[in-house]
């Protein structure tokens, strides 16, 4: 069965690029515009991986990661966050919050898939 990935980002263009890449690679994809939407989307669904941006309105990435780690049924789901090379402090914060790994922006499809293959298969 195809693995399910939830992509959380407030930028529609990023959501679309990621969505397209992942669907082409054979994943089933859900997309959410911020943490809050993501939390609503989870709602008991089986999710194999969450990819989230860190800076988002309403509920940001760090809060989302903490929420997921604290929620039964999701607390072991791998989480990758999107970051830029310069955000070192954020990276540590996200890891401490429970993120599994990260993807550095900007990225090409191959890099995205390589990062994903490190955490789910």
């Amino acid at each position, binding site marked *: 069965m195809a693995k399910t990935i939830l992509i959380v980002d407030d930028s529609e263009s990023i959501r679309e690029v990621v969505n397209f890449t992942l669907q082409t690679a054979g994943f089933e994809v859900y997309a959410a515009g911020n943490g809050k939407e993501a939390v609503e989307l989870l709602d008991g669904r089986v999710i194999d991986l969450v990819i989230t941006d860190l800076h988002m309105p309403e509920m940001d990435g760090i809060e989302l990661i903490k929420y997921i780690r604290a929620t039964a049924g999701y607390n072991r789901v791998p*989480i990758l966050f999107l970051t830029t090379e310069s955000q070192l402090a954020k990276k540590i914060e996200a*890891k401490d919050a*429970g993120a*599994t*790994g*990260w993807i550095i922006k900007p990225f090409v499809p191959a890099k995205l898939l390589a990062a994903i293959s*490190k*955490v*789910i298969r």
Partner: protein
Amino acid sequence: MDNFQKKFLDEASDLVSQLEQALLTLEQDMGNPELVDSIFRIMHSLKGGGGMFGFDNISNYTHRLENMYDLVRQKKLKVTREMLDITFESADHISSMLNDDGSKTEEIKKNEEILNSRIEAILDGDSMSVVTVGDSVEVKPGLASYYVKVKPYEHIQRNGTNPLLLIDELVGLGRAKVNIFYSNIPDFESLVFDDTYIWWEVILATESDIDAIKDVFIFVEDDCEIVIKKLADGDVFSFDGIEPLLQCSHDFPFDLEKITSLANTIQALEKAKTETAQAAAAKEDKGDEHIKKFAKESTISGIRVASEKIDSLMNLVSELITTQAGLNLYADRAKNAELTRIAEGLENISRQLRDTAFSITLIPIDYLVVRFRRLVRDLSREVGKEIEFEARGAEVELDKSLIEGISEPLMHILRNSVDHGIETAAERKAAGKSPTGKITLSAYYSGSQVIIAVTDDGQGMNPEKIRRKAIEKGLVAPDAQMSDKEAIDLIFMPGFSTSEKVTNISGRGVGMDVVKRKVSDIRGTVSVSSELGEGTTITISLPLTLSIIDGMLVRIADVDYIIPLSVIDTIFAVEHEKIVSSFQNVINIEGVQYPFYYLRDEFAIPGDAPEREEIIMVKYEDRKIGIVVDNITGEYQAVLKPLGKLYRNQDIFSGASILGDGTVALVLDTHKVINQFTRYNDL
């Protein structure tokens, strides 16, 4: 020998030891002009004395060395390691010339040719390349072996990391062996379900660099203890004798010290070998068939063994495998853990012994190609044609007996190509072709067969001419209807030869019928395809079937069959229902349509089929075709025995094998099975 000569010999011996002394000092103090001078003087004296007292060989040889050191004196050449090596060897060479009583003249001459070409390499100014090449160990660029220890902290899975994926990714970088350590797993009561207690050691040979290895663990740098150590350049798995050190055993760490020291020793040896090979290679460039041959011989480290000894080794291995099967069966029934362990250990060894024994009998086709190249060259001169000969896949290996068997038929085919196939330069020009004809010999593996094809770009065969000839010779009826392909196949008929004039080469009454017979003697087949004006290809297919094969033991009704593992791609379980309801013998498995053959039907086996059957996907040309059997017993090393007379026409069976309990299993040649049933079904 007169007194003067004796005196020279004594003097020369002294000079040689002086030379050695000077060389040893020069080695410590490279480029010391005084030492260079004294070496030059020694050469000069040897040369002069040799010429005066009738030792021309010594005089000629030292002349070259003198030249070399003269250039050093003039500062046109620098003293290099290779130069010193040559001079040391020259000192030995000169002493052996001085002491030669005539018994070693040949050997000395060969040695001299090698040394000369090395000296020439230096004089040609490419001394640099010789030295640098000699210094580098022969490894694939970038291929190196690493030790990686991955010891995750207990909490690693809490943030969604699956450490197994990382080990997988690491192993995916190259060739690897993994040791797993379970010893940290606590008692059941104190075990936390998603904590990680297991850790790993990996020996990895990869072309990726150390950064790529680090990259695997980029997300978990803080959640793991990671140790990465480079063990050696090159692939440690390919090192002789290292295998026992790389056995995976739970909870026993790899002995890194031993692995590294063995790797170092092996590399030092490799290096020495490469240097010799490089020196030899340097000579080869200088041409001269004789030297080439010698260089090749001198770099092959091997011994000659009588073929009978190899044959008897093979027989013993066959016996061992059969006995082994009996032991396995007995061990299984006895349900004795210790016995099973011993049986498995022994099986592992006999498998390796079998593989090694087989590899001894394999010879690359290259062995023949050298001869053929010469043949084509000589023959084309003789008939005044310009022909280029190309060989592809010369590395393909064949059993020694097949090499012997194939040599003569191939020789005939090449002769035919040179004589009848390729046109004269004038004819070729007139036909708008390049004046130089081309003959290509290509060899490759195809499933369980080796294909050897000889292609020429000559005039091709004229089916009409062949047909007329065959009628003339009374081989076919005058009114026989036949396609062009069938007409061309007539060349394999006994007593057929189209050559209108008998030449020196082919057309001596030895026709393609003989080729065909010789090829079928070694269980091969030969076919021809030809395009008038374009050229001809003769293809020989040889079975790769060795006398022992790895097979899959399967059952249909109560009969055992063996399918060679080499042709098996995948195996699926299917419901009998699905087979019965299939249309046109095509079955859909995981979304792919596969044609299949239902052996129960094809063999007309009565009785009820089991509810679930197994479909084995075998490779057939570039497709996969299913073969349905009742069930699969397991892997089996089968010793092939020829079938008796009654089975002679059943070529879908390549042999039979006696199982551990004494029953007989037929070995299926899936290629032929598919061929036969396809033809049958098409009718």
